[in-house]
């Protein structure tokens, strides 16, 4: 907790070296991000100087103890919250607002977060609706995606009629709906049994590789983590 924040820069520069060349576009870049929560009298420094870069089509896994700040970091990367200091850039731009979010990134959560009033197809299409366009093309893409995650027959089932693994497949399809540049997944297998979890990770990694989408995967599962192109560890408010 007391390390100087400048130490946070080091992993990032390593990452750039690892990524190898500039052929790959930089999709996500966070530099020296700090985040402190104030709860009553107590200050909780969750992130002190986190930096991370993710290139086009690259997959990065983040592991770390519960409460180490992984979700906090993901929310900052998604532009859903602002860092106290430091910057988050999407494709080199500081604009991480709602207007860009719909097309730039997709998110997958531990608890799926499907809209209970909408069927599987409706949930996938919701991403397109928020992005502002639902036409025949979008409908076809949503159907294709549902077929791709193995739910072709379940298009018109409500979330309550689907199992946990099936719901998460719908959520994965939804994250891919708008052909985003980046997917942020926060413990997507946390609520699933091992076998189902494995298949979700297969899907996520497979689809992202297929479509050249960058992926940041937060997971507790060591086996899942090693399947990503690169693994980092969150400890004491820093990425290592």
């Amino acid at each position, binding site marked *: 907790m007391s390390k100087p924040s400048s130490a946070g820069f080091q992993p990032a520069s390593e990452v750039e070296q690892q990524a190898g060349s500039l052929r790959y576009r930089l999709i996500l870049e966070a530099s020296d991000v700090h985040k402190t929560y104030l709860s009553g009298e107590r200050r909780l420094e969750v992130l002190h100087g986190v930096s991370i870069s993710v290139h086009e089509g690259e997959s990065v896994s983040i592991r770390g103890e519960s409460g180490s700040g992984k979700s906090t970091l993901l929310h900052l990367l998604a532009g*859903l919250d602002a860092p106290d200091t430091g910057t988050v850039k999407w494709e080199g731009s500081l604009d991480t607002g*709602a207007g860009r*979010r719909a097309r730039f990134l997709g*998110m997958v959560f531990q608890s799926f977060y499907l*809209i209970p*009033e909408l069927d599987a197809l409706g949930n996938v299409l919701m*991403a397109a*609706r928020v992005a502002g366009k639902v036409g025949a093309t979008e409908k076809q893409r949503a159907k294709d995606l549902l077929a791709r995650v193995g739910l072709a027959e379940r298009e018109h089932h409500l979330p309550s009629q689907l199992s946990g693994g099936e719901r998460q497949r719908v959520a994965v399809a939804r994250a891919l709906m708008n052909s985003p540049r980046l997917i942020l997944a926060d413990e997507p297998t946390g609520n699933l049994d091992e076998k189902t979890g494995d298949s979700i990770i297969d899907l996520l990694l497979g689809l992202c590789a297929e479509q050249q989408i960058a992926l940041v995967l937060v997971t507790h599962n060591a086996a899942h983590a090693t399947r990503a192109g690169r693994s980092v560890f969150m400890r004491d408010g820093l990425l290592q």
Partner: protein
Amino acid sequence: MPWYLYLALKQLFPTGKRLSFFTAISILGVALGVATLIVTNSVMGGFGYEIRRMIIDTQGDVQIRARGLIDQAEPLIETVSKVPGVLGVTPFAEGVGMLEYGRKPAFPIIQGVDVNRVNDVIPLNRFIRVGSLDELDDDTVILSTQLAYSLGAHLGGKVTISSPLLIERLKNDEVFLPRELTIVGLFEIGHQQLDSNTVLVTLRRMQDLYGLGDAVHGLNVRISEKLDADQMATRINAALPDEPESRARSWLEANTEFLFVLQMEKNLVSILLLFIILVASFSIMSSLLTTVVRKTREIGLLGALGGSSRQIAACFCVQGFLIGLIGTATGLCLGFGFLALRNEILLLFTKLTGSQEALERFYQFSNVPAHMERADLVLIVVGTIVISTLAGIFPAWRASRLKPVEALRNE
């Protein structure tokens, strides 16, 4: 369709289910409020309308009275008849008299009518329940129903009528014999006071009873239906000669206070009933607030999908608006349905309570009147929808203030 509109519709009418429970309750609240407002406003308006019509039917649209008596009625009638828009003019004389039937006395208002002309202005024929107006001559009389009832008088019976003139003459040692008249009809107007206390005689008989000679007390005037009574009164006043000094007043002017009370009563009840809508709007608000709490995570998710807080607010505002809209539409159907069946419903009610006779005694209308001003209807519809939409604003504001991060955190 913008996503927030789509989602608002889906939350109100989820796929598979017809209506969410919370929504149904809110809609029902609004619908009941609107229906009650419509029925009450319409029935009160109906009674008011009937009362107004009764005033016009018994007094004419415009009444002309002089300071004293009108000695020369005919030239005046001719002048007034020539005013454009005037359909009929009839002279009248009226006053209190003493009436005896057997040994029972009564002190009714005696109305002297010009049998040849009265029907041009006052649809007396319509009010005759027994007998006929044609038989009214200088030796006959028509009684109001309740007066006849309390006297025990019946058709063909004889009554004697005397007037204050009797006493005056007595002072001068003259003899003025009470006139004996035969009952040839009974009439009922539908107004307690008139029906319990009025008798009709010919104008000539009244002039005789009151010693008026050829003079009358005033003229009743009927005007064309499309014309405004106040404007016509002004026009007639302009045509009236200086002698005798007389003035025309419209029925509106003559009954200002009564009409004001009538209107006041209706407004007051409407305002009280508006509280039903307000209560309904609170149920909308609480149901939407519950939704905001229940759907905290989804609201967070919408943020993660790229929805702005303004759009999320719109989603809830639209729900308030839609509940108001559907509730109002349902309320209109309920209200007007009830009004269409009002007589059947009343009949059923009176049968169940055995109060039919009492009802007819109290309310002279055997059918429940209904009359609604278009402005009132528009006010109810627009007001309800506006109030419902406003009820959605607070929940919407709460939802929009919810940060996606906070919303997503309660895993």
